[in-house]
């Protein structure tokens, strides 16, 4: 029951992250500015930090979140390891992107910050899902 709840929580958080990253990917390719609470979204989204070797950072985020969603749907022995690795990587890279917004760009994008909050929630849940085992399960 707990294992299922953790798996579900990982899937839901990853889907939320995928939604945010998907929207930012769409606006990146569409050339439009994201709907935003501040003027920071457009500045961040159009900054040179929004791409790595021409690949939108938002697209990398989308693929990462979809990868995590996929791990919750398969019954592979390494699914939890992959999920946790992706989630912790997302957390670390999002922390760096938060630093970039604060110190390199000087503006915050509300979508990006929301994404960073999602990854901060997702990583511990994914680790909990990885480590959780029933009391009567063999060690």
């Amino acid at each position, binding site marked *: 029951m707990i294992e299922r709840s953790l798996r579900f929580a990982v899937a839901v958080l990853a889907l939320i992250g995928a939604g945010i990253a998907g929207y930012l990917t769409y606006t990146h390719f569409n050339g*439009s500015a994201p709907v935003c609470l501040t003027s920071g979204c457009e500045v961040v989204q159009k900054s040179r930090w929004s791409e790595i070797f021409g690949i939108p950072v938002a697209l990398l985020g989308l693929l990462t979140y979809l990868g995590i969603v996929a791990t919750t749907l398969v019954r592979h022995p390494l699914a939890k390891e992959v999920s946790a690795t992706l989630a912790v990587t997302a957390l670390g890279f999002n922390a760096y992107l938060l630093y970039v917004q604060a110190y390199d760009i000087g503006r915050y994008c509300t979508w990006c910050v929301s994404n960073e909050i999602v990854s901060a929630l997702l990583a511990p849940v994914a680790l909990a899902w990885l480590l959780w085992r029933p009391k009567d399960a063999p060690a």
Partner: protein
Amino acid sequence: MKREDLVRVLAIVGGALVLVVALVVATRLGHHTNKPSASAIQLDSVNEMLSGIPQKGITLGNANARLTLVEFADPQCPFCGEWGRTVLPTLVQNYIRSGKLRIEFRGLDFVGPDSVRLLRLAQAAGLQNKLWNVVELEYENQGTENTGFATDAFMKAIVQAVPGLDAGKALSTWNTSAVVPMVNAAQKLASQTFKQISTPSFLLGPTGAKPTQTITNTIDGQTFTDAINAQLKK
């Protein structure tokens, strides 16, 4: 936590750390900083495109044109630059040169300090009715945002590339109060018109009347062509 679990977590965190470091290094190396050279200003076809078209202050085109397009843009904004390089030439060729459309440039400077310098320089050129040449040359030679590319040498090279512009006068005017009213007017109009502006944004409507259409979140040329054709048919 059991030893076995600890090893698993450390392995995952270690693996993630390697990936994060690789991504961070890629972001630092992966984007070249485009800092245009002041000694090699790209003229492309800007001056040729605008040649012979009347300019007055912030406007380009016949004062009696049926339609007016108001452009809200930041000289540093990459999408504004893209619009200026790809869509404007078509509008000039099909509508502005024939006197059907005029454009107002309402410059904003929210991206950063380079925006302030570039916008003020454009407005200073506007005092000599050459704003559009400067704006389009700034777009043609646009550097990466907030890298300090709008140096004195860069700005000098831009204004010296505009035929008929007194470059010395523009360079002595851009940092004075003479350009402030135009900058303030644009910001006021933007805040009155848009709840939350993104650049470039546009207003379209009959000249002398209240704009009837807002065009935002796109730099697709067909969108502008369709909107102008629809208004010209009315």
